[in-house]
């Protein structure tokens, strides 16, 4: 943390930018400190790496470099950045300008990195990335996980210190705002965004330019709101953007404010993202101190103040009208959509609400033009999309690809496929409002339209890979349970429908399913979809409907044969050790918490059904797939 604080202090003396030209001059003056060829040791200190002692590694690196004798050579400086996106390999250390990539760095590796690599130019084998075929990769840009991505929105993340505004400015941030303020009219900005045809990244996919235009045409105080209430479990794109490149989002919001004619903005952040709250708070302070936000921005006479507001743990507050109600200090219940929030939103005034990723796309659209943006992606879904790839996949992390890339490429080429030689079963997109997509649809291109066609949605970009050991009925039960807890309760179809669906799913997973259950679930599901009030209610049945649609036989096995083939629903399976496959390594015996497994070393072991509590420790840890589900 020490160095993060230092970065903050060094900004006390930064100048106030009084004109767009002054910003360019200031940027040029930063090149010697932040240029690409300046020797730098980068360490990821995002939420994914922090639990694995990343901050300690950063501190040790800084201390070690300060103490080491470089004999007159330039001492590289240490930079703690936001999330690199390759979270399953963290903590990640990168050495610039060479671009050397080290993974899973522990505090004890620090002296070796300083002595061997930084001073001696020698690579350390055990810290290098190896793929499944044991091929070693030295440089970041060669690793397939990074090489196959097109990072536009994420381009600064993992490169800049999010607590240091100078670092952001050196990469060009606030340049688009300078352009918008000095040489574009509000109408021209909106036209550029409309030309780009970017659709809202929060999930619904409404064209951003059209939203801006209708908000700008309203009379009265207008508000710019950023939805950073990333409530979908399994999604962390917005968290990484907020933690890694907060100034890009502030810049996007300021451009929107100029276009729409607003001087007041709010960012609504989840309470569960403490680090994002820290980075944003500091980013706003720094930008205001430099005259890049606040009054008279860059001397152009334009005012725009941004405040931060915290949620208190409610999934439904990700819905735009609920979020605005929560911003007003009330409970977050959605409103009917015939009153559009661009007309009457926050404080009953015209309000433009966009997702974090949408705002993060705006600066590039302004700098490079809407036509450039439209050339990326597909005709209907332009630009890139950031996905958070998690679940049963080798390379867990953030993936940014152009729209239209097949799911298979994301999961298998970038994600490296399913680990432990297990079979791919489904990919869940769109969080609790989305659905499960089975293997036969893996070649569909990812876009708002195509995911809709297979019964799922794009959503905010969560992508959870499931292998053969995941039970789809249980997944449907999980999401339905989640939604029962999170339903705001004001409209009957969502409140009651979900409870009834959960009861049926509970019954099926306990082996008490009835023949008519899938049909009943579909009937209730369609009712919930058609008659709920808000966007979350109308999509709440998607997890159930999509699993029935694509995995009906799994429901039937549960109901008719009282079996859970994936080995998840406890009353519906038992375990056995396959004598032919068991080599008697003894791992299962050691792992079993109730001593249900017996056997001598190097001889097939035996599992006593009566004692077994089905904790699956033996199954999970067997390297020979000898523990089988019956």
């Amino acid at each position: 943390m020490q160095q993060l604080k230092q970065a903050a202090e060094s900004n006390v003396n930064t100048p106030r930018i009084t004109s767009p030209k002054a910003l360019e001059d200031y940027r040029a003056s930063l090149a010697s400190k932040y240029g690409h060829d300046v020797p730098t040791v980068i360490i990821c200190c995002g939420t994914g790496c922090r639990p694995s002692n990343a901050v300690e590694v950063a501190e040790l690196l800084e201390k070690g470099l300060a103490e080491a004798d470089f004999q007159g050579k330039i001492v590289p400086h240490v930079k703690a950045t936001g999330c690199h996106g390759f979270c399953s390999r963290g903590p990640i250390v990168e050495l610039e300008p060479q671009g050397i990539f080290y993974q899973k760095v522990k505090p004890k590796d620090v002296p070796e990195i300083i002595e061997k690599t930084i001073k001696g130019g020698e690579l350390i084998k055990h810290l290098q990335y190896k793929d499944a075929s044991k091929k070693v990769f030295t440089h970041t840009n060669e690793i397939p996980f990074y090489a196959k991505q097109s990072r536009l929105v994420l381009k600064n993340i993992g490169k800049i210190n999010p607590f240091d505004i100078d670092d952001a400015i050196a990469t060009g941030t606030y340049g688009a705002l300078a352009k918008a303020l000095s040489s574009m009219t509000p109408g021209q900005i909106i036209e550029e965004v409309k030309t780009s045809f970017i659709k809202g990244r929060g999930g619904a996919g409404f064209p951003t330019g059209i939203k801006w235009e209708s908000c700008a045409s309203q009379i009265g105080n207008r508000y710019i709101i950023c939805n950073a209430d990333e409530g979908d479990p399994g999604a962390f794109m917005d968290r990484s953007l907020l933690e890694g490149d907060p100034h890009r989002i502030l810049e996007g919001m300021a451009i929107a404010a100029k276009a729409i004619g607003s001087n007041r903005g709010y960012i609504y952040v989840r309470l569960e993202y403490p680090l994002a709250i820290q980075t944003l708070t500091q980013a706003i302070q720094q930008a205001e101190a430099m005259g890049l936000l606040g009054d008279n921005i860059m001397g152009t006479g334009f005012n725009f103040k941004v405040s931060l507001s915290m949620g208190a743990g409610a999934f439904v507050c990700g819905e735009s009208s609920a979020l605005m109600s929560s911003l007003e200090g009330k409970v977050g219940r959605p409103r009917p959509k015939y009153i559009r929030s661009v007309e009457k939103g926050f404080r009953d005034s015209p309000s433009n609400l966009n997702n974090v990723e949408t705002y993060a796309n705006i600066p590039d659209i302004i700098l490079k033009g809407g036509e450039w943006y439209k050339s990326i992606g597909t005709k209907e879904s332009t630009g890139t999309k950031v996905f958070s790839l998690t679940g049963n996949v080798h390379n867990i992390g953030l993936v940014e690809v152009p729209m239209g890339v097949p799911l298979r490429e994301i999961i298998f080429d970038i994600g490296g496929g399913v680990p432990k030689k297990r079979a791919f079963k489904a990919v869940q997109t769109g969080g609790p409002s989305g659905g499960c997509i089975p293997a036969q649809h893996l070649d569909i291109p990812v876009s708002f339209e195509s995911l809709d066609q297979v019964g799922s949605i794009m959503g905010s970009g969560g992508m959870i890979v499931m292998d053969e050991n995941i039970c789809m009925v249980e997944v449907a039960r999980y999401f339905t349970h989640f939604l029962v807890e999170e339903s705001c309760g004001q409209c009957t179809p969502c409140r009651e429908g979900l409870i009834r669906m959960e009861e049926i799913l509970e019954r099926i997973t306990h082996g008490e399913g009835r023949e008519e259950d899938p049909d009943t679930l579909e009937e209730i599901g369609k009712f919930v979809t058609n008659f709920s009030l808000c966007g979350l209610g109308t999509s709440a049945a998607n997890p159930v409907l999509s699993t029935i649609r694509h995995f009906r036989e799994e429901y039937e096995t549960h109901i008719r044969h009282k079996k859970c083939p994936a080995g998840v629903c406890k009353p519906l399976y038992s375990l056995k050790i396959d004598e032919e496959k068991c080599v008697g390594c003894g791992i299962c015996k050691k792992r079993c918490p109730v001593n249900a497994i017996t056997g001598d070393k190097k001889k097939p072991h035996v599992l006593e059904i009566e004692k077994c509590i089905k904790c699956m420790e033996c199954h999970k840890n067997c390297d020979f797939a000898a523990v089988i589900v019956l």
Partner: protein
Amino acid sequence: MAGIESKCTEPEIDYNVLNSIIVDRYNQNRENLIMMMQAIQKQYRYLPITALRYLSDKVQVPLIKIFEIATFYASFSLKPKGKNIINICTGTACHLKGTGKMVEHITSKVGIKSGETTPDMLLTMDNVNCVGACAVAPVIVFNEKYYPEADLSVINTLLDQAKSE
């Protein structure tokens, strides 16, 4: 009996602290009600009724509206929380990697369900729907420290730690 009860009684409310939150920090602006309540909860580890009454008076919002907020949002608690708080992430990635079993394990070991506190006020179990650290799932947060790729043995250690304090 007296021992347990005395630990559960309402803490003494320091009105200067409440004023510094409601008046100085948030300007008695009712739009900041949620953040004021978060600050009060941070101070007392829950929302004591006396503090809410005072808040209601200060911001001129009926107490019933404050209770509505306190019961709507998951992070608020009207009951005192334990000295240690264990948060099990039940987001999708963590759920698939078995946090459901961890919750069951804690329930069977110390007898509290999600949202409950042990009678000795040493441990509260709260579940959170995704902390955004899916890459290191399953994640447990114990007293705000993250434990990546946790398993039952990590939980056992933490439970022992909670008990010993």
